[in-house]
């Protein structure tokens, strides 16, 4: 167990699987799969496994995703790391091919691949295309791909291992805003399941549900609320598809108040699905939803930081909900 950065944890998972399986490949674009961590060996997949297995060509994220699908169909487990600038480029091939081929072929096609799709939303100043966090919904709505979004380095490693080993295609959303996190991460491989939410904080006054980059602000809000005597139960969805309804229903059956928190645009954000699932299953609940407005993120830090939900927004919405 060592304190590791997010990306070190992810690459450690991949490195282990690539050592086990000489057919496995990795395709990248801007970011070479290289990571260092204090007192740990540098991981460099490119030099360790060579440029036949670890490849970088031109700027073509649809090629990257399509190539790993083709590799998977031919029996090679494969991962591609799509930078956030290209996060929507491979949408069609993931939606219409990766997600459907097993079903359309009556089960004979298998696509054991991982699409790491970087999502941003973290940096004021870049605006629109370089500051948005929105594609979670697009990838969670489609059928046949498991769409996950870890929020801790521990989960990032464990879900990456599980994703690589899964016979199903996995969209592994990688929130750029969490790159700076580090945490205790075991050196040996382990799996975090691809279908379970996690209760991060137990509480009885209300349930706060978030995922990915919404988690740090939700946890901070829960701390502030605790100081005020409001005990929030905080759930990290982790998995958008297939969403873990049971954990949600169990919690809200207890608290009867549900607050969802998203960095994604309000309309059809993951929180809408959370609310709808709970609403179908639990009666007499009060609801609130915090999300980014239905507007592209502006460049100006003043505008952007006002629009992006922060811990105080979450805490205040919680106060109103319980009040």
């Amino acid at each position, binding site marked *: 167990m060592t304190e590791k950065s997010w990306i070190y944890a992810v690459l450690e998972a991949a490195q282990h699987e690539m050592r086990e399986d000489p057919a496995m490949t990795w395709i990248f674009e801007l970011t070479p799969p290289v990571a260092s961590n204090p007192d740990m060996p540098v991981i460099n997949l490119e030099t360790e496994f060579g440029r036949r297995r670890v490849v970088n060509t031109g700027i073509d994220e649809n090629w990257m995703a399509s190539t790993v699908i083709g590799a998977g169909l031919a029996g090679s487990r494969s991962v591609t790391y799509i930078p956030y600038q290209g996060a929507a480029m491979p949408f069609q091939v993931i939606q219409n091919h990766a997600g459907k081929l097993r079903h359309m072929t009556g089960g004979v096609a298998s696509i054991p691949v991982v699409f790491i799709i970087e999502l941003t939303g973290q940096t004021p100043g870049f605006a629109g295309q370089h500051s948005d966090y929105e594609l979670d919904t697009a990838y969670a709505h489609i059928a*046949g791909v498991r769409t996950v979004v870890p929020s801790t380095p521990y989960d990032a490693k464990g879900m990456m291992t599980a994703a690589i080993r899964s016979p199903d295609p996995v969209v592994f959303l990688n929130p750029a805003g969490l790159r700076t996190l580090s945490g205790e991460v075991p050196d040996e491989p382990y799996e975090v399941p691809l279908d379970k939410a996690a209760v991060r904080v137990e509480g009885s006054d209300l349930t706060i549900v978030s995922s990915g980059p919404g988690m740090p602000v939700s946890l901070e809000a829960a701390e502030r609320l605790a100081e005020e005597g409001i005990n929030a139960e905080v759930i990290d969805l982790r998995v958008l598809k297939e969403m873990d309804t049971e954990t949600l229903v169990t919690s809200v059956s207890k608290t009867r108040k549900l607050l969802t928190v998203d960095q994604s645009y309000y309309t059809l954000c993951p929180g809408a699905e959370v609310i709808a699932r709970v609403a179908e299953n639990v009666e007499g609940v009060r609801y609130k939803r915090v999300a980014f407005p239905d507007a592209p993120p502006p460049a100006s830090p003043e505008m952007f930081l006002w629009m992006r939900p922060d811990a105080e927004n979450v805490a205040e919405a919680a106060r109103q909900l319980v009040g």
Partner: protein
Amino acid sequence: MPNSRDDSTPEVEALDRVDTPEGAGPTRRGFLRIAGLAGVAASLAPQIARANGRIGYHAADLSDERLTDLYRMILRIRWHERTMADKMLSDPDYRGYNHFYAGQEAVATGVCAALRNDGPFDQIDVVYSTHRPSGHALAKGVDMRAMCAENDFRATGLNNGYGAEMHLSDPSVGFIGADGMVGPGPVLAQGSAFSFRARGSDQVSVVFGGDGTYATPHFHSTLNNAKLLDLPFIYVLENNLYHQYAHYSYSSPHYDIADAARAYGIPAEVVDGQDVMQVYNAAYEAVERARAGEGPTFIEAKTYRYYNHWGAPGAEVGQLGAFGYDPLAISSFRPEREVRNWMQRDPVDICRATLVDWGVLNAEQAAQIEEDIRAEVDEAFAWAMEQPLCNPEDGVKNVFATGEVPARQFG
């Protein structure tokens, strides 16, 4: 010789090998034979698709048995198409549909004959097909009965009734499968080639694509990366002149789409897609090149489909081809005389005439083979029609490798 490669020593050596796994049989190569075949083709056709003049080379080295197999396969595809079209037109209980391949049989047959079609999955060559897959599927070795059942949505079909025509798939023979989308298939196929190179396999990945694939953005991704990474990849572009109802000149500034591939430095050949021997020759060289680690090949086969884009509009029971109005074409459709012209150079006729000319078959044997194939096809359709229909609740299975997703239509 191909336009864009020079004839370096290893390939000259390769040409000298006799490509008969059976190892037997005298080589048929020789000027007389080639001239003879050219005569056959010319006598059948006033308008020969532009090709590069090399005819009957590697094919001439094949054993009689393998040559006869080419003929059998062309017939198998042809009669599958005709029988299915007739069923669609005459049997109201029949629910299947097809994008008919009749007219193009020599392309699938010639290409797949040059591939490794059995063995373990990690050694077999793979083929990616299109929305017009029945010919490719049969040529790669897909079981006709299972395919017929699938096309009629039967639970025991090739894909258990989930896929039908546009999603036929049988990895056990390397037929990765049909693809109803135009564009992505070639990129996916080069992805398989990417994995072969990565894992040091000598497998080859082949994509069939129509002239319609040229204009898709995926065309560039496919060829550029196949070239940059020297992938064991073959792009077989079946130029049947139309993408749906538009002539290919609406979508391409090239007369030969092969020129577009040459621009990347990819060896590209234009072949007469009606002549299975020409197609086989080009595919043979492409496969050799790919297995030798020398990268991709592009083959443009000039060909034509006898039916309309989809289904059997304009066709009549018992008659080959469709000449009538296609309502789907709305304001533009191809001239009937163009269809009739192309039918003068029929891939079945050309193959039969070649084999008779080469002394592989006589006319009676050829006719008997056709009878046998027709019986096989009839039996396959009959078998398919007896298969059980699907169980509705199975629709929520096979979404993921295990389990099923919940029903949601009941609220």
